[in-house]
């Protein structure tokens, strides 16, 4: 066959029968659009969570939380006492650890006031929780030991309370108690829930527990084991110590939870499992329907093109030439429709992301090239499979019979 003439023939046919072309391609466009959109979002969210977990919860660390079991609520916040933590730390000779303890308090500086999130940390928050001061200093061991009224504030809080001055060295009031601002934290951005992590005030956990909250327990503590291979052993040792100290017998429900990165990732993957099944299912359904639509339209189309097929045979088309032509027609429709789907998906992502995803701290959704290639390939395969039977039938028509119709 003459390639250039074949190309011209197919293009002009698809153009002149626009309605049929669009109808045949519509399913594929929607299928590709849905697949690329959902899968890109799913992958980006996964990456975002994974990155967040890795950053917030390094693999060589363990988090011990007050309260046990999946349904444990706020009433179990008081089960992990500071002396529990100290026992664990000395038993496992843990050098770096940092509590996770938060509260909301009224904070004032001059005329500016704000209800701020107060986080209690030790000086080791710098290594354990990757906190650091961009301006001024972070908490020191003396601040923590001395239960000093020292604060390191987040950039957003700094802007709210000190709009026109450098906060370092200034004073602010938490619940009417004066605190010296030692530094401003390096920016952390949004967390996965879209919360601004820079809207925070860090104080020594000792100060927070004894002066602000008057408690002797912490909701959670992060312990740096330092070596990933020692994490599982440390986990069971901590569980043993806490069961003994809390007098929890065999078969009784723990009043604490020991978390590792592995456990968190498992929980995350489990909650994402639905999405993992859902996206391929939608894709498969969309492509199946597209394939059937193509099959049906091609069958109808060949019935109305019988005389054309007879003529083509009369002027010298071999069965193979007819099959090639029909396959290329469908292939061109499927490819075009798939590319359109990819374009619509990227446009959709570009408009959708600022609206919805920025709340999760996602600025842009990356559309993986492999995903695009896979979606387009699936579309073309769908088209070709849908076209297979009708094209074979058409090619086998008897020219004499076909010309008579």
């Amino acid at each position: 066959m003459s390639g250039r003439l074949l190309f011209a023939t197919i293009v002009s046919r698809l153009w002149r029968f626009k309605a049929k072309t669009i109808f045949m391609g519509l399913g594929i466009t929607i299928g590709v659009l849905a697949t690329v959109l959902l899968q890109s979002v799913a992958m980006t969210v996964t990456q975002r969570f994974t990155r967040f977990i890795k950053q917030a919860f390094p693999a060589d660390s363990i988090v011990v939380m007050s309260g046990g079991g999946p349904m444990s609520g706020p009433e179990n916040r008081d089960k992990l006492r500071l002396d529990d933590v100290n026992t664990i730390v000395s038993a496992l000779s843990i050098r770096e650890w940092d509590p996770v303890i938060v509260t909301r308090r009224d904070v004032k500086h001059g005329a500016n006031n704000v209800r701020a999130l107060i986080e209690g940390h030790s000086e080791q928050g710098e290594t354990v929780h990757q906190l650091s001061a961009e301006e001024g200093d972070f908490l020191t061991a003396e601040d923590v030991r001395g239960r000093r009224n020292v604060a390191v504030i987040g950039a957003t809080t700094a802007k709210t309370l000190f709009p026109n001055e450098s906060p370092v060295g200034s004073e602010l009031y938490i619940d009417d108690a004066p605190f010296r601002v030692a530094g401003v934290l390096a920016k952390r951005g949004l967390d996965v829930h879209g919360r601004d992590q820079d809207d925070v005030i860090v104080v020594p956990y000792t100060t927070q527990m004894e002066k602000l909250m008057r408690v002797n327990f912490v909701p959670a503590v992060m312990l740096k084991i330092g070596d990933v291979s020692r994490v599982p052993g440390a986990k069971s040792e901590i569980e043993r110590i806490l069961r003994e100290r809390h007098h929890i017998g065999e078969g009784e429900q723990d009043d604490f939870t020991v978390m590792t990165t592995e456990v968190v990732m498992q929980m995350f993957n489990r909650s994402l499992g639905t999405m993992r099944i859902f996206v391929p299912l939608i894709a498969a359904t969309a492509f199946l329907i597209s394939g059937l639509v193509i099959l049906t339209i091609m069958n109808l189309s060949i019935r109305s093109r019988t005389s054309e097929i007879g003529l083509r045979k009369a002027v010298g088309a071999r069965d193979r030439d007819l099959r090639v032509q029909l396959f290329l027609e469908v292939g061109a429709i499927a490819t075009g429709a798939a590319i359109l789907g990819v374009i619509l998906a990227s446009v959709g992502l570009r408009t959708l992301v600022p609206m919805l995803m920025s709340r999760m701290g996602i600025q842009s959704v990356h559309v993986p090239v492999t995903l695009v290639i896979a979606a387009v390939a699936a579309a073309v395969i769908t088209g070709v499979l849908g076209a297979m039977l009708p094209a074979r039938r058409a090619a086998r028509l008897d020219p004499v019979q076909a010309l008579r119709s």
Partner: protein
Amino acid sequence: MIEMNDVVKTYRKGNEPPIKAIDHVSLAIDSGEFVAILGPSGSGKSTLMNVLGLLDRPDSGEYVLNGRAVEKLGADDLAALRNRHIGFVFQSYHLLPRTTAIENVQLPLLYAKRSDFKTRGEAALAAVGLSDRRNHLAEELSGGQQQRVAIARAIVNEPSVLLADEPTGNLDSSSAREIVDVFRELHAKGTTIVLITHDRDVAAAAERVIQVRDGAIQADELNAAVVGGVR
């Protein structure tokens, strides 16, 4: 160029007795001839054209086209032979709808190994006097113009023989005359034409008239009015 020897073609329709559409026909047509095959409907002339045009195979007998015995050729070889050697003109034109005149004319070139489809298409359309309609869609043309486009399509690949099956059957008498004139011109330029018709007036344009009835040749004579007694 065309040699048929004792060709038989039989059709069976359900439980009815078989019909001999071609009944032991022997026939020779030389290059450059203008032959009319004349017969009433049901005389088997369309079947004869299908066999001549390699669209259908004879049940028995031999058919040699340009020195090649065609009974034993496969479907692909027959398609290639049709493309190279045969130009069809049908009663109902068989143009592709929503397709321009020039694209219709170029159709056989799609299956030929030629790169000069542009110039060939234009030349064929010029030969039937329709260059000015090249970009008109087939359905925008009158019946006579459509048939001329179909003739251009039939000659575009310079076939050995032009097979026309009732080419004037759907046309009014003045358009029919135009078409017959086109055939005359093509014949004058050396094209071999086999014209199948039931119309004596149309057949009168040919230099040789073969009359068929019930699948058999009744008469095969020169048309004195055209040939002028000289052959």
